[in-house]
């Protein structure tokens, strides 16, 4: 029984050496995928739509509405961390078919595909058994299960990065695979900008398949140039709003301070401890692979491949340490883990290969598979606490707190033409959970608001051009900033104002003061842990007309 093959340059050998159980060779993969599906799907009912999930699905619906009916959009591209026209639109379509569960099942499918690609990629690089170990380790990660049950960009982005990597390791086979690399990298980057981080990894893996060092260097250079050119061209076509969004959310992301995107400064010890908690076993096995490769003086190509895979697993943590923030790390760590699982698979297979006696080697295989199962059990136990939409999540608001608030608000949100200001992190959860269709320009948050000054010709959606000012001056059509909120509230512009979700930013204080000093606004409820007001004259008028 051979558990390791020579590697990437020998696909026929891979086929030959994995044919030991010709009828059953797919069975372990099917078992792994079935287990991953079951462990992932069990999380789906564990939580209501989170802030991120609601935001993307709501945005997708708004963009589809814009596509059919016009009316502009609130420039999602300036603050979304992926192209809003890709995942959010897809998510909205799935939502239309089967609600939140369908969108989450779509993520399950993406993550299952990523696991299958982990097997396929590891099998191409190191052989069948490392492929099984790699897929098993990746499927067993709590983060993998979390993302498979979470309706955000990440599952789709991981799948596309995995596809790009698979293309890269097959680039020795034909030019088709080589040409596919930049195209698939572009798709991954467009889906989620943070995947830029793994572009060099994918390109480096493609380069290692070139055969010789000069050829590898040449391939690395050419592929890098191609990827950069395609990306720059696409950003140019997409426009300045996209560039702003890419810079704001990814490339020039603010370091860990209290900011509107919720990042807080974290000490390095916390960040490394979190990485260890979530993917520590995988990284440890990856490092073992690296040590084995160096100590056993394997060929340079294999050393380069293993080094790249191990470094990929640490990139997210290095970036988090640079930013002093663990914002989104529980999602991004899984991207890196996908790569390092392949190296981990190699190290486990290598250690089993060292056993010379045939029957002992079988025992070694069983032990290795048992270890994978134990790793899976360990990380699966963590999944409920790291699942961002879950009841036990440290970071999401508990449904017990939010659902009564959403239920209370639902009839008030049906007020025809009523505008809503929600100053907290539940801003997109509210209309999504209540299944209320509110146009984006009637649904305002506490981060940015453009108020059309009465009598100056502006409109709520900002479609009518005109200068926007931070204070009331003669030629201004719109107001922005504090004065926009103050003027709008004094004019009774909003039918509902809620601070539930507690952003805790300065504008929230401004809103609170303006509301409490404006006649007509009455405190409706404190459900959800913060005040919510309604503009009583509007609702009295509505009630009198509709009995």
């Amino acid at each position: 029984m051979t558990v390791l093959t020579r590697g990437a340059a020998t696909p026929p050998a891979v086929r030959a050496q994995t044919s030991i159980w010709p009828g059953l060779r797919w069975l372990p993969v099917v078992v792994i995928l079935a287990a991953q599906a079951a462990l992932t799907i069990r999380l789906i009912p564990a939580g209501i739509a989170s802030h991120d999930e609601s935001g993307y699905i709501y945005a997708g619906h708004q963009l589809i509405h814009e596509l059919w009916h016009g009316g502009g959009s609130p420039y999602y591209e300036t603050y979304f961390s992926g192209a809003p026209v890709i995942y959010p639109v897809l998510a909205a379509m799935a939502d239309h078919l089967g609600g939140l569960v369908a969108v989450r099942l779509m993520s399950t499918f993406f993550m299952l595909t990523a696991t299958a690609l982990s097997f396929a990629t590891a099998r191409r690089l190191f052989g069948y058994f490392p492929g099984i170990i790699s897929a098993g380790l990746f499927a067993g990660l709590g983060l993998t299960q979390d993302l498979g049950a979470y309706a955000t960009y990440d599952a789709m982005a991981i799948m596309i990065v995995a596809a790009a990597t698979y293309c890269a390791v097959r680039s020795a086979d034909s030019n088709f695979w080589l040409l596919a690399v930049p195209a698939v990298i572009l798709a991954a980057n467009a889906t989620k900008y943070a995947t830029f981080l793994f572009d060099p990894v994918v390109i480096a893996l493609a380069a290692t398949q070139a055969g010789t060092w000069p050829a590898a260097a040449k391939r690395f250079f050419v592929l890098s140039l191609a990827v950069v050119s395609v990306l720059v061209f696409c950003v140019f076509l997409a426009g300045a709003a996209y560039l702003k969004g890419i810079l704001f959310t990814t490339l020039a992301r603010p370091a860990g301070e209290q900011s509107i995107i919720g990042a807080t400064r974290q000490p390095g010890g916390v960040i490394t401890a979190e990485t260890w908690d979530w993917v520590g076993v995988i990284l440890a096995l990856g490092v073992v692979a690296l040590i084995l490769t160096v100590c056993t003086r394997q060929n340079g190509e294999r050393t380069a491949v293993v080094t790249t895979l191990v470094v990929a697993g640490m990139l997210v943590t290095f970036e988090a340490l640079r930013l002093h923030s663990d914002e989104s790390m529980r999602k991004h760590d899984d991207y890196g883990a996908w790569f390092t699982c392949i190296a981990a698979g190699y190290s486990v297979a290598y250690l089993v290969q060292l056993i010379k006696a045939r029957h002992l080697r079988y025992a070694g295989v069983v032990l290795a598979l048992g270890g994978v199962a134990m790793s899976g059990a360990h990380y699966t136990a963590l999944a409920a606490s790291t699942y961002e939409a879950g009841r036990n999540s440290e970071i999401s608001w508990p449904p017990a707190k939010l659902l009564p608030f959403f239920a209370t608000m639902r009839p008030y949100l049906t007020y025809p033409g009523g505008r809503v200001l929600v100053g907290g992190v539940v801003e997109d959860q509210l209309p999504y959970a209540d299944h209320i269709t509110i146009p984006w320009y009637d649904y305002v948050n506490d981060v940015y608001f453009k108020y059309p000054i009465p009598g100056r010709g502006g409109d709520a959606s900002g479609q009518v051009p005109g200068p926007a000012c931070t204070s009331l001056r003669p030629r201004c059509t719109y107001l922005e900033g504090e004065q926009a909120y103050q003027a709008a509230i004094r004019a009774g512009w909003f039918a509902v104002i809620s601070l539930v979700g507690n952003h805790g930013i300065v504008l929230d204080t401004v809103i609170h003061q303006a509301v409490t000093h404006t006649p007509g606004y009455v405190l409706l409820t404190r459900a959800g842990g913060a005040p919510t007001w309604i503009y009583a004259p509007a609702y009295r008028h509505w009630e009198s007309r509709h009995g």
Partner: protein
Amino acid sequence: MSGLRRLLAAGAGVALLMGGCAAASHLRALQPAHMPASPPITIPSSGTEMQRGIDLDAYTYPGQDIAAAARADIAYITSLHADAVLISFPFFVNGQHGSRVYATSATPAPAQIAVIVRDAQRAELRVSLRPLLDEKSIGTARRRWAPVSPTVWFQSYQQFLTPYAVMADRLNVPVFVVGTELTRFSRSRHWAVLDAELRMRYHGTLACVDNWDAPHGTGNCGPGTQQLIDAYHPLLPPLTSTWDAYDQTLEPGTVEAEVGIAAAPDAYSQPYVTHWPITQLDVAVQAQWFSAACHAAAAEHLGGIYFWTLGLSQEPSGPTLADQGNWADSAGARAISTCFAALERSRG
């Protein structure tokens, strides 16, 4: 052809997958937490429309001149700038282990209550009615007591209440309280039956009052009843901020049906204690307590506040060592009057 076949197979696979996922997404087992039912739209009153109320504890005795006592009480209540009165009338149960409800000579008859209601309405006071289980008859606190036979209790309670509900409906009394501080069985299924019977005869709002330390939420005394609270939460100085903080825990629009305290030095720590072993009264305690409670209720947009209590008497009396909770014609009354007058002015 082979390429076309592959394309068709892939298309069929994707369609099958989408159909399967769409079907699976409707499985009940996969659905996240269920959204509770939405309450109907209510438009809370603003702080300036808060009910400024006084409790009237209407125990009577044979031969009492109810009309004169009512006139005196209502005149006194209006002199405090109040705009609402909550009239409590006692009923009795045959002992701690009893289940039968009955009236005594201390219970004003519906016609006698009607006299007080009409006087209050003439003075433009908002009137609410409330039956109150006499604690002496059960030998314990109301909140600790439950009938041995709920079926018997609810049947005789309904018989007792019905004439009062009919009178309340005839006089357009807007709120009729069905249960007060009956914490141990406030969620009994019998309440829904009682409410349904009363609603056939009374068309105003049915309400339920419970103590500050009882589990809050909707559903006490049956679904659809307005929830009021007897606010005897222990608070320490500074009273303005502690009352404010306490009221913030209540839903806006909540009515505090009872706010009272004994004129005793340590009463803040146990405002529900009506008799302290003291030799000297401290009326400042009542004044500070009432003032803080009143201002906090307005600041936190509560639906109303009622101060406990005046008796049915021609001469409302202040605190004594025997009746330490009384406050008429004392610093406590002045504090209530000052606060209510300010709220009245702000209403314009």
